[in-house]
């Protein structure tokens, strides 16, 4: 159980590095797909089938959108030269990552370990969710009944982003006076 999880996570990390470092944007995007699909399998391992379904369709659509964008623009990554400023930036970044990691590890030590979460709000959902709402899929019960207000917000986010995309892709925004 833990071993495949770690293997997939390592795959995701490698995929992330390839996605960010490849010179061809298209192969970068394909590597991003690796992360997304690996995430789908992880969701399945973690017993989250709802998430797996959503993740796999969202991932596919995101890839289509990203590829369409790259085909419309350019495939080449911008070239970067190594100079002193860059080395300094790298050094600072490395220090930041180490510090962040150490703080996170220290924080995680004081948190419940993997697989043993504290249930407080969720206790009610698991114990009574089915009998109160009548939905056998508890995730559906949570998103559309207990936390339906959030889901309205979520649908609104999508509506907003469509309105945004349509707005941004108008040919003329400001009339020349």
């Amino acid at each position: 159980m833990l071993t495949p999880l770690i293997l997939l996570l390592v795959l995701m990390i490698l995929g992330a590095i390839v996605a960010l470092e490849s010179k061809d944007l298209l192969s970068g995007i394909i590597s991003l797909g690796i992360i997304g699909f690996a995430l789908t399998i992880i969701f399945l391992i973690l017993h989250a089938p709802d998430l797996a379904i959503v993740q796999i369709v969202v991932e596919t659509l995101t890839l289509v959108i990203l590829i369409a964008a790259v085909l419309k623009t350019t495939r080449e990554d911008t070239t970067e030269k190594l100079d002193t400023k860059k080395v300094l930036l790298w050094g600072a970044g490395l220090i930041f990552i180490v510090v962040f990691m150490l703080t996170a590890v220290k924080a995680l030590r004081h948190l419940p370990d993997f697989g043993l979460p504290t249930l407080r709000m969720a206790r009610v959902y698991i114990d009574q969710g089915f009998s109160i709402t009548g939905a056998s899929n508890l995730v559906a019960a949570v998103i559309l009944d207990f936390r339906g207000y959030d889901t309205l917000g979520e649908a609104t986010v999508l509506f907003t982003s469509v309105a945004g995309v349509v707005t941004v892709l108008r040919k003329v925004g400001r009339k020349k006076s």
Partner: protein
Amino acid sequence: MSLLPLFVIVPLGAAFVTPIFSKFWKGFSDWWGNLASAFLMVLSLWCLRFSTETIVYYAGGWEPVDGIPVGIAMVMDGLTVLMLIIINVIAFLVTLYSVNFLKNYTDRGKYYTLFLLMLAGLNGVVLSGDMFNLFVFLEIAAIATYALVAFGVEAESLEASFKYQVLGGAASITILLGIAFFYHLTGTLNMADASRLFADMGPSPAVIFTGILFLVGFSLKAGLMPFHAWLPDAYPSAPASISAMLAGVGSKVLGVYALIRIFFNVFGMTVMPSLLTIFLVLGTLSMAVGAFLALGQKDFKRLLAYSSISQIGYCIFAFGLGTPLGILGGLFHLLNHSVFKSLLFFNSGAVVYATGKRNLESMGGLSQRMPVTGTTSLVGSLSVSGIPPLGGFWSKLIIIYAAVESGHHILAGVAILVSIVTLGYYMKVQKLAFFGPLAAAYQKVKEVPAFMCISMVVLALLSLGLGLLLLPQLREVILDPAVKVVEQGMGYAEMVLGG
């Protein structure tokens, strides 16, 4: 109390139908947007009746089970009422201003759709008593703002919008990681419930790490000094009405309000003792550096953007003092800043509308041709620089007095110095743009249309009269309940959950 969800339902519903109707009827979105925001303004003023109470509304009727909240709580207390009034009054004036201002832009329907969504997001954030719900509404407001910043779809507004999105997106994801830690730590998402748990937990490394994630995320949204990179680009590139909304309301609700609510009411001072110092440092830094960067600007709106950083610094600085007087000063300055900064952005929009220019050095003597804009901008400038008896003077006085009282003499000195610098650069604006000889190119410039003038005049009158809020009768209703909410800290849990 079915009043609370109306603040979200009304703008959402109005936004959803706008794209359909504005296709068939060109002028529909104008009056529809104004109608919705006017209704919300009246509703928010009506809520003043309840400002001393704490009203909790559980969406879906999910009352707490065994004292543990299971649904999403909407909470309205004194602080929320104050923020609701700020949001909805400014929003109404912005929609009024937009009626004429949008003449230069295409596609009003989309503008009003996005604006109403942003309004719904901001109201939702303020009313939310649940961490994840706050995040969702924050995202609605943020995404609508990204699109509105790029509304002109010109090269520079697109660039500013992208920059804003990258930093805003990173901030959102950091906040989401913070929520994941928060949930892992407490097992709940309800703020009041979590607050109760944090009180027992004490300052463990896990709590501090969660706090840092929230601090970084919300400071990015507020545009505080080390995290301000997006702000001086986004404000000038947006249409002036949106800059006014963003500077006057957006960054305050998404940044400052969320910071206050989470750190004072949820984490509480006992858990994060060094927090006040962090607030003081961030505040002083933003205050001083923002003002000095503003001094060198030639672009009217860019100058206002840096000035915004500086003024938000004042607010955070005041909260960092931690004394009741400091909190009063901070909240009062928040209110004042919303009014005069929106006014000044409206003025800049009027100048751009009339002349098409933003560069201060190419202007001159505009007061002669645009008396309303000139006079109101003078009022706004004097208020922001803290000249008595305008609103800005009183809030700065309280902040400086509170700093002296709590023994931060050097920082009080810095605040006074920054105030003088502020006066300096606003006088520069007045001199370059509105006084002096009228440039030959502007002989034919006309005063802006009626609706723009009305909203500017209303804001100018407000900034003249805001000092009156310190009168005991008014203070009891508007400012004191809000101060009490911040001051009580973790008493918030009892107020919301009872017992």
